């Protein structure tokens, strides 16, 4: 097991290295000059030249790339060209905001998605099955932009029960300790604030959960259908076990492996792909941080931001791979 983890971690190095290289080349291939963007339209030619030299943008690309790698080895993710703050120092609040939101979303997606999938498979071709799969189909193809704004309209403006945007009631701000507001309010023991923070999670969380929920439901359904037809399920049934136990204990165990893979992938996607949700709901997460950095050609932020997200993505997948063994003892890591 440890051997396996070690090998997987070693494999990470070429993956991440290759990724830094690709990102590095792509952002330099697109036109647009960071110095110009930073200094604004007023800037003089000389000021822009001076800034380019100062930022090291005059060096050939391979020197810039090796400088960047050198920094990475020593834990230096570079300094934002725009805010002049080291990425390491400013990235955590964004990352925490996104992780909190993604976890919330994936929990919703998993609970509802898996159950809807199971029930659909169990009662295949029933009205529930049709309804759930139609909703899932709509969910997969739902434009988040539209859904988000509609939910804001219904739940905030018309019903007045949920806030439209942001992470907290800014009139009663959360004292940041970990950056996860749910945990921070728990530490502070302020349950009023905790409920406000949770309410702020609901709209962006469900908007973000929609697509993974639909995908998980469809995946669970098809995987369950296959397992339900297998002999051991029939045996279990004929032994007189209740259908509920057969489905949730025996069948699910075998059907869950591909679903776990999907959950892992979706969780990774949520981390980096929440830009739209973060924009509509004014969520100060890492997707927006990187996205805005692209507009400003803030090279170090783009590079390191993507590197961090990719790293988490890979780690989640490793974690999922390890989960397989837990769910299905037949799977061995050698």
């Amino acid at each position, binding site marked *: 097991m440890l051997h396996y983890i070690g090998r997987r971690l070693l494999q990470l190095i070429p993956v991440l290295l290759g990724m830094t290289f690709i990102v590095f080349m792509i952002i330099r291939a697109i036109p647009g000059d960071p110095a110009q963007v930073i200094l604004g339209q007023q800037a003089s030619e000389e000021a822009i030249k001076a800034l380019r030299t100062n930022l090291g943008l005059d060096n050939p690309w391979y020197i810039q790339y090796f400088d960047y790698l050198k920094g990475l080895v020593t834990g230096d993710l570079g300094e934002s060209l725009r805010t*002049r703050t080291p990425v390491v120092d400013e990235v955590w*609040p964004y990352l925490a905001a996104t992780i909190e939101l993604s976890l919330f979303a994936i929990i919703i997606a998993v609970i509802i998605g898996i159950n809807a999938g199971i*029930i659909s498979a169990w009662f295949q071709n029933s009205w529930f099955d049709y309804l759930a799969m139609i909703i899932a189909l709509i969910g997969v193809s739902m434009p988040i932009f539209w859904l988000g704004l509609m939910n804001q309209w219904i739940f*905030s403006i018309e019903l007045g029960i949920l806030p*439209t945007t942001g992470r907290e009631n800014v009139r009663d701000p959360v004292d940041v300790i970990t950056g996860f507001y749910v945990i921070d309010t728990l530490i502070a023991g302020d349950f009023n604030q905790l409920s406000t923070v949770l309410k702020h999670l609901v709209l962006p969380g469900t908007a973000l959960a929609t697509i993974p929920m639909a995908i998980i439901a469809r995946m669970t359904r098809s995987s369950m259908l296959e397992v339900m037809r297998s002999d051991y399920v029939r045996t279990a049934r004929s032994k007189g076990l209740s259908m*509920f136990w057969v489905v949730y204990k025996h069948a699910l165990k075998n059907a869950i492996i591909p679903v776990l893979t999907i959950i892992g992938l979706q969780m990774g996607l949520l981390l980096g792909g929440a830009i739209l949700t973060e924009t509509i709901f004014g969520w100060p997460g890492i997707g927006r941080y990187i996205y805005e950095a692209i507009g400003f050609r803030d090279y170090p932020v783009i590079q390191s931001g993507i590197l961090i997200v990719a790293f988490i993505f890979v780690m989640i997948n490793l974690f999922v791979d390890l989960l397989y063994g837990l769910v299905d003892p037949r799977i061995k890591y050698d």
Partner: protein
Amino acid sequence: MGKKKFLSWAFLLLLLVSTALYGCSSDNGSEGGEGEGGSEGGSTEEKTLIFGRGGDSVSLDPITVTDGESFKVTKNVFDTLVNFGEQDTEIEPALASEWTPSEDGLTYTFTLEEGVKFHDGTDFNAEAVVKNFERWAAGDGEKFPYYGSMFGGYGDEEGNVIESVEATGDYEVVFTLKRPQAPFLKNLAMSPFGIASPTAFEEAGDAFGDNPVGTGPFKFVEWKRNDTITIEKFDDYWVDGEPKLDQVVFRAIPDNSARLNALLSGEIDLADGITPSDGATIEGDENLQLFERPSMNVGYLGMTVTREPFDDPKVRQAVNHAIDKQAIVDAFFEGRAEVAKNPIPPVISGYNDSIEGYDYNPERAKELLAEAGLADGFEMELYAMPVPRPYMPDGQKVAEAIQKNLADVGVTAEIVSFEWATYLEKAANGEADAFLLGWTGDNGDADNFLYALLDQDNVGTNNYTYYESQELHDVLIQAQSEVDEDVRNDLYMQAQEIIHEDAPWVPLAHSTPLLAGGKNVINFKAHPTGSDKLASVDLE
């Protein structure tokens, strides 16, 4: 358990859970009361104004940045020596209660307010002013960009118009200039030149932008990046009775519709960047009010004069005649803009109202094209702005309208668009045949439009059209150091005539940017520069 039975149970459970959830959330709604945030602000003792805007600030050390979102905050944390008028760019006293320019316009003597304190308790005096200017002059274009672009250079450089800044008394400062600079006072009133506490910036160094200390009506409290910036009332503010509010929170909500939703639900009290099409919604809502920011901008279609056939002034004039500006203003600015005929908006002194703008006249356009030997028209690329700006709410649609107008006179325009930074770079490189762009003034001076956007010195930076005219250059340079206001205005009128004749642009519109707020917001006056002082704003 039968299939049917299970399904019914599951359904019932689902119903129960959702009812419980709903009940729970509406309970909290009445306790935590965020949905009714707007009225809550007025009823409690603490008056907190929440200002929703499109983006976060870059830094709160105003001299280090160039973006409007930073100035929106620093305007309320720092004071400048002199200030702009409430809703115009006339110069008024601020930290300097009086000033006297010398006859030749080379020295300015400022008398400072006494008894003013910085938020950290440091005394504001002549010494503090000198230290601020010393700090800025010792910088460069990278550290303090606006100092160089407004005063011409740094330190001992010949371009730096400020020869020296001396404290001639505890509360008297004398500025000596190398040559007269007509917009000198207007420059001093700009947000980047807010006077900072010397104790604080000497101690903090580069980190000053995260912990700004000024003399302004509000002091800095907290910054949650990309989310909120909180400032609170400075009890020792030197202006009696100000500020009225206890706290102001600037919240970044990038999406325009979401920001409007937040305003409608009462989570924010003021919203910037209201699109013209939402203007009517707000006017129709009895809980809201609409604020108009006096226009100090121009949206235009630039033609790159180095590219054929736009090297021929006749072709550029023809394009001017071909475009129906009024229709564009009506359709895409919802009438909340004025049709432009000059590169500067009418509020700016020196505006030439006697110029007769090119009227919408396709026939005349065809004639001019024929005179230029292009009776059969030509093909061109038209750059459409990918981002909305106050001066161009929807670049794509404006481009489509122009495309249609051009087709009517036989010109085939292909609309292209790029991501914003790419767009600006391509336009700056002169790669566009014609492009949509605009400008919002920094200090309300004509120089800040005409010289910045159309002088030959600025080709490749802000003069995207590559238009060069020695005649115009001479006039603009002369105007820069002319201290007699009337003579100076005459020069700018002349300049506008030259530009009108050469027609490197089709000036399209001077738009009125919109903001909206709850009915309980009183005394909010939107400033044309885009940064609003909130000292006298109150909540009912």
